[in-house]
């Protein structure tokens, strides 16, 4: 969006903040594609991007009366979208952790093929994790997330080493699988 477009958006936002409902549609029409594209760059899953863009615009229009005319309207909108994307990503991460899933972050800059490959790897790792005991699974997940339990580090390393060995054996289809 060029400077002229940004200024026009700001004027429309000021009007809507003052209660002029005729400014709603032009603002929405201008912001939806921008916020959606921005969210798509932030989040790997297009459905998540849509959700984040929708929530961001709902929040923006809900609080538009707080819009400060001194601020850049587009930056304000994208700031809300960025916050929503981060929140959604954290929420998904927590959900995965609670479900004992693999905390693999997709690289958002990667192309569709690379992303598909990442997803495939994630599915395989998740499947192998499910074959491990609960203790081993917890240890491997801690290792992947770079977490360490408080206390005896040597014992943890020994247990982790054993858990990783079992994980690798399952991964390569070794004796544990048989």
């Amino acid at each position, binding site marked *: 969006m060029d400077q002229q477009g940004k200024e026009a958006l700001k004027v429309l936002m000021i009007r*809507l903040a*003052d*209660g*002029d409902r005729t400014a*709603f*549609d032009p603002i*929405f029409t201008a912001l*939806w594609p921008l916020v959606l594209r921005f969210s798509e760059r932030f989040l790997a899953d297009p459905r998540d991007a*849509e959700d984040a*863009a*929708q929530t961001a*615009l*709902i*929040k*923006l*229009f*809900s*609080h*538009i*009366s707080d819009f400060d005319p001194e601020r850049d309207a587009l930056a304000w909108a994208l700031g809300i979208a960025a916050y929503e994307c981060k929140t959604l990503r954290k929420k998904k991460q927590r959900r995965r952790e609670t479900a004992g899933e693999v905390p693999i972050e997709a690289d958002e800059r990667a192309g569709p093929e690379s992303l598909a490959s990442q997803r495939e790897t994630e599915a395989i790792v998740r499947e192998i994790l499910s074959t491990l005991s609960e203790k081993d699974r917890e240890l491997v997940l801690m290792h992947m997330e770079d977490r360490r339990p408080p206390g005896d580090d040597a014992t943890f390393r020994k247990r982790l080493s054993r858990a990783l060995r079992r994980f690798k054996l399952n991964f390569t289809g070794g004796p544990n699988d048989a």
Partner: protein
Amino acid sequence: MHDSRIAEDPKERARLLARRAYERGRLRLGLLPALLTLLFTLISLSLGREPLYSGAIGLGLAAIAVLFTYRGGIPGRAVLPGLVAGMPPLLFPWALRSVGHYCTSGSCHSLCLLGCVSGGLVAGFLLGKWATNQSARYTFLASGGILATGAGLLGCTMAGAAGMVGMSAALVLSSVPILMLSPTPSGAR
């Protein structure tokens, strides 16, 4: 657009939800003036005169404040100034009573009436001054005046009909001349 199509199209769904969120946000904005009118009503009730009358005026005032804020524009901008301007006619009679001048239902001391009239004058002066800075100054004055009068009526119940009429007249007489005498900015109505 049909509801099922709205549900299918993410953009239309987002538009509908955003519009609803906007309208809810406007209603939420009306909460502060509504709370202010509630406070005014409680002050009026504490004066101990005509609770039904105070309640009815308070309810009407809250409804107008929320409606104006929700609709926005010039009337929306006039809500808080109107309520603030309404404070002198609300509080002057109350203050006069608390410094020892007392009004009863049968008769009221002249100071109560004086409190209402002087409160109306101050309210009108304030509104007139604030309206001069607005683009639609008479619309602003009328909207703010309705709210200031409502708030003033809540305080002037103790001065009876004379107090209420006196306060309203004073408000009009002190506000309109300010607007008429002040230079009209370009684009003002």
